[in-house]
């Protein structure tokens, strides 16, 4: 409204001001204000926020995650928007830092008034911005794994497309036992998922009758010599890393120096391409990584691949943020006022429960306008949510490092 008035004043300012023209403009402005909200809403774009890590530990994923969201927004706008209203994407960098993320989220929520914040990556970031989102009735779509996130009192505003860390850890711990691990250790920094990771690993190890030990270290240290000494006293032959790339580099180097010969495993975001570049091959040789793996056979996945440019392998987080955007857009089309509340209330109506199967928002919007029930199947998986906002079930891909390059072991 203020914008409209501002524009009017500006136009007048370019002419010579007369009492009459001011009155006329004022009357026009008043008429505009008095018009029903719907009329004005038609012209107003719906704003969506992308809050991905463009820099920091998640910097390898953030830019493409943002591009995936932008691709959906562009497609939908080209097809006429959401029930006539264009979409506008506002992107911010969370810097993989909770502090920076809160500042960025404040801007997205208070200044840009977005309906949804999409793509938060690190669990600490998501935990930090989540209260801002639910208090301001903005939906939050995240790829973070920490169990604690969906346990927050978020009133339904959080949607998580990443399997939670308990599910991930249980799967990976079983994998470790299958790989023949005899004495298992877990090492990682203090994160929102550290404790649950340790518990899950411990349970699986105990069930398989394997000794288990764990150590939580201080994040962002330049060396972990003493920590490595401490963990090696338990003589593990399988060590699970629980951190991110920066500390995993330091840890892998110190383990190598200490003469550790056993197996190492980490999430793929920790032992990443950047880490393989930063360390000599003999240090990373044999390291294993896992990651929740997108539904590569799905039509949504190939569509996303096409949107982002041929030949690129779409990582799971990018696949998930693509789903975030599609889900948010279709939920907005179901009804409501183009805000976070509308998304919160409607996501499950288009993500699950049967109906016409769709793999993108443009087709979905058409079906919704035609009055059909839709069921979205995304690039990351079926995208069905529990009442808490968690997804149900997903696949994992396991890889092993050989001479500084990843070799796929299996997808299961």
């Amino acid at each position: 409204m203020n914008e409209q008035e501002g524009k009017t004043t500006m136009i007048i300012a370019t002419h010579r001001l007369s009492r009459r023209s001011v009155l006329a403009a004022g009357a026009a402005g008043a008429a505009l204000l008095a018009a029903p909200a719907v009329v004005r809403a038609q012209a107003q774009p719906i704003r969506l926020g992308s809050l991905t890590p463009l820099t920091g530990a998640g910097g390898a994923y953030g830019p493409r995650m943002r591009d995936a969201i932008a691709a959906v927004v562009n497609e939908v706008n080209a097809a006429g928007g959401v029930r006539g209203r264009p979409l506008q994407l506002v992107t911010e960098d969370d810097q993989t830092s909770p502090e920076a993320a809160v500042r960025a989220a404040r801007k997205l929520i208070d200044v840009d008034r977005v309906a949804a914040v999409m793509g938060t990556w690190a669990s600490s970031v998501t935990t930090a911005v989540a209260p801002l989102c639910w208090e301001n009735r903005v939906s939050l779509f995240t790829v973070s794994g920490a169990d604690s996130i969906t346990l927050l009192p978020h009133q339904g505003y959080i949607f998580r497309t990443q399997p939670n860390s308990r599910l991930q850890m249980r799967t990976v711990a079983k994998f470790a036992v299958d790989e023949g691990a005899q004495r298992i250790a877990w090492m990682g920094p203090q994160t929102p998922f550290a404790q649950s990771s340790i518990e899950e690993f411990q349970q699986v190890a105990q069930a398989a009758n394997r000794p288990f030990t764990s150590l939580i270290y201080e994040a962002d240290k330049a060396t972990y010599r003493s920590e490595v000494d401490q963990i090696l006293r338990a003589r593990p032959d399988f060590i699970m890393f629980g951190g991110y790339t920066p500390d995993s580099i330091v840890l892998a180097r110190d383990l190598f120096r200490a003469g550790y010969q056993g197996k190492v495993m980490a999430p793929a975001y920790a032992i990443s391409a950047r880490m393989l570049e930063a360390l000599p091959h003999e240090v990373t040789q044999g390291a294993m990584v896992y990651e929740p793996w997108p539904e590569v056979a799905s039509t949504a996945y190939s569509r996303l691949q096409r949107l982002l440019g041929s030949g690129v392998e779409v990582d799971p987080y990018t696949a998930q943020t693509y789903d975030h955007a599609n889900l948010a857009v279709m939920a907005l089309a179901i009804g409501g006022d183009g805000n976070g509340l509308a998304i919160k209330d409607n996501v499950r109506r288009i993500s699950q429960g049967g109906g016409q199967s769709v793999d993108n928002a443009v087709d979905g919007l058409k079906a919704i306008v035609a009055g059909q029930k839709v069921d979205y199947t995304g690039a990351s998986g079926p995208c069905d949510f529990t009442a808490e906002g968690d997804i149900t079930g997903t696949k994992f891909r396991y890889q092993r490092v050989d001479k500084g390059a990843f070799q796929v072991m299996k997808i299961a």
Partner: protein
Amino acid sequence: MLAEVAQLLVNGIVTGTLLAVPAIGFTAIFAVLRFPNFAIASHCTIGAFAGYVANVTFGVPAAPALAFAFLVAGLFGLLTDEFVLKPMRPYGALTTAIAAIALTVVLENVVRFAFGNDLRGYDLPIFRDWRFWGIRLGPQQVENMALAVSVMAALFLFLKFSRTGKTMRAVADNPTLAAIKGIDADLVGRIVAFVGMGLAGVGGMLLGLDTSIDPLTGFRVVLSVFAAAVVGGLGSIPGAVVGALVVGVAEELSLLVVEPTYRSAVGFLAILIVLTLRPRGLLGEKAY
């Protein structure tokens, strides 16, 4: 258990030796200019990155790259002291210390702007550690220690025998007397800002050589550096060395009783104990 203690002692001595270099810089600046210059944090970082540019971009070996780290960090120290901190000094040590904290945040972000937030490693080979009597020690650690010890030896010789070194000690011991003898306190102040921050730069690079560097490299060690200087006696250069070894060893030995997560608290605890029981530090505040 015995091997464990021995190992932690060795680790502590290595860390302590590296920590001593910036601690000397910090305490020397305090001795002459009479304020805690917390900008030491960003100068550690600047030195580490200057050394990184020399080592990785230009392929200079570690030891000469260290000299480059000294020069660049020293130059930054000289300029920032002249234009930022010196005008603050008439308003008291506390004001200047606060300005130094602000300065360090600004400089840290300058580094961040230029290099980004990513961790970077120096271009050095990685070796398996040596093992003897159940204790392990890395070749890189030994080299770093040797470098740190040489830098410190050079500094002691400079202070002991060179004319400039003697004037620095004179101003630190008794500024009034030094002024009567015609020593230019301003000039000495500039030299100490250059040398002190140069040492911080060397320390930053030494700490990073074994590990990795990022814009927070200096910030992470500043508490330990400050603790080392306080424990040894603020203003005392041999005190800084002793303090650094004490803090280094204490941080490592603390692992026997607490989780590694709480290791940083040891620095605080050391400051608290020393200030309560022996406020002048282990060696008092005589500069040399």
